[in-house]
């Protein structure tokens, strides 16, 4: 289903979602100039919004830290933000959400903590019109338009908003708006796509060539920043924090040595090279990288995807 809306009609859709009990979040700049999700219906779409540095969609469905059960009586603890309509998600993050959905909901065991929050999340992604710093989303098939992970995907086409429905709830919300010309959207998409770099995907594969892996692991400070910001990094640890009667699950990072530690201090991957190999095995081998570029933006050591791309692709 493809519909055509004015900006005012987009705001009507958001108002409808508010009426359905959703808290609408939209991108806004705080007083320090950082992009954050702010509650309410936006007056206008912020043209200069690239993406959030922090992967808020991941944080909504899988908080970096959350209590899971009480150690006294093993009572499950469930934490929720309530119903959220996330307006302005970027396609790379919607795609990341589709990856984590598949991982947490469609394998042998479903994670109920994740599932309950995911059911309460309505994602309205807005297609990108220009690449943001360090991104290579087109190469990874996650941008500038998402193929999955959204309820509604909006395209800013010639002063109007083309709306693609990705769920039954969205089809219901958009039902009464006029149909859009799919051919016209296709032309627009082609034009936009040309602005996005496309690298040789066959070279962005596991295994990392050893000289590249060695270069990256020599430069990595093991700060974990790339993992904190990666929209698909969801590995977690569970433990009882000292002095608390709960077990919490908290995000874990495979570039920190503690991730690989076994009983009595032994380690499965004692060297940085092995840890780096493990990370790239996941991101490129299994294919969890969306090409959003956050890891490169935050890396203090030039040891993230930008370095990987430059080292593997050379002059391309």
């Amino acid at each position, binding site marked *: 289903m493809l519909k055509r809306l004015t900006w005012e009609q987009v705001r009507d859709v958001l108002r409808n979602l508010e009426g359905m009990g959703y808290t609408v979040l939209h991108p806004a700049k705080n007083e320090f100039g950082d992009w954050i999700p702010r509650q309410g219906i936006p007056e206008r779409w912020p043209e200069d919004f690239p993406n959030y540095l922090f992967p808020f969609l991941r944080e909504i469905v899988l908080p970096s830290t959350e209590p899971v059960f009480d150690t006294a009586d*093993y009572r499950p603890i469930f934490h929720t933000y309530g119903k959220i309509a996330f307006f302005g998600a970027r396609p790379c993050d919607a795609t990341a959400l589709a990856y984590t959905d598949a991982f947490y909901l469609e394998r042998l065991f479903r994670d109920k903590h994740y599932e309950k929050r995911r059911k309460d999340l309505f994602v309205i992604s807005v297609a990108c019109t220009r690449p943001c710093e360090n991104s290579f989303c087109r190469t990874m098939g996650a941008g500038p338009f998402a193929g999955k992970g959204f309820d509604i995907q909006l395209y800013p086409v010639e002063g109007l908003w083309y709306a693609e429905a990705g769920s039954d709830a969205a089809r219901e919300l958009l039902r009464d708006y006029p149909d859009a010309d799919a051919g016209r959207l296709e032309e627009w998409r082609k034009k936009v796509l040309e602005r996005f770099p496309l690298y040789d995907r066959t070279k962005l594969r596991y295994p990392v060539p050893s000289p590249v892996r060695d270069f990256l692991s020599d430069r990595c400070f093991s700060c974990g920043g790339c993992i904190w910001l990666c929209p698909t990094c969801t590995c*977690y640890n569970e433990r009882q924090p000292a002095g608390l009667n709960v*077990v919490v699950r908290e995000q874990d990072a495979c570039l920190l040595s503690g991730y690989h530690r076994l*009983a*009595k201090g032994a380690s499965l991957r004692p060297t940085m090279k092995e840890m780096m190999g493990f990370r790239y095995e996941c991101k490129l081998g299994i294919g969890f990288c969306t090409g959003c570029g956050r890891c490169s933006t935050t890396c203090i050591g030039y040891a993230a995807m930008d370095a990987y791309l430059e080292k593997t692709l050379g002059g391309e």
Partner: protein
Amino acid sequence: MSMKLHLNFVNVPLPARIVSIVDEAPDIKTFVIRYDRSAQVLPGQFVMLFPGRLWEIPISVAWTGDEEIALTIARVGKVTSALFQMNVGDKIGVRGPYGRPWPMDLLRDGRVLFVIGGLGLAPVLMAFEQLNKATLVYGARSSRFLLYRDRYDRWKREGKEVLLTVDRASEEWDGHVGVVTTLLDEEIVSSHDYAVVAGPPIMMKFASEMLEKLGMESDRIFLTLENHMKCGVGLCGHCRVGDKYVCVDGPVFSLKEIRRLEEWAAGEVI
């Protein structure tokens, strides 16, 4: 708190009770726990165990009884040290059983050679006892570390061969001395259809390589991997090897499957 609610949350343990604790060897004890899902446990599976504090650890089920599971545990790290401070009657958290079990249907069809080191006897005990045509080749550091010694005579009476070895002989030991692979030869391997290998990683590496060299095909050799598991349900990421998660895709793998993981990691299979 309803059981249904618990079932919904795969990462929340169920309260259970310790009913007995058996000394097996120095720093190795078997904890028998009253757990109403014991009938669901298949040979080779594990449970996640929570000693009321710290965090959960995966432990293989050694044997099951009527609403009971037995877990043989060595005191190694923080959580097992906390377990060793617990007493009969204490409440303990249990989740599971989890993991791919030993391929019992396949193993029942043939003669099975168990090549086991140390604590590796715990995850194979149920499988070994359920099979009729099985040989146990079992090694430990010293005779004091040979587990479940009271069962050996029964196994022999049942027609199973039990070959024991120790790395270091004490005065009272008059059996074979040497690592477990010194008991393997072409004759014993060729008289079996399948092999089951469990023990310390280095022992499993050498034992499976030797079995292969002596003529056992890699899809007939089964091992249990003991990777670092935090959740047991394939979600936390820690036990991943290549594109497999040991807790849900394993812990039992054939040597052939493990080779494929090595090839995947080398980029040969995508």
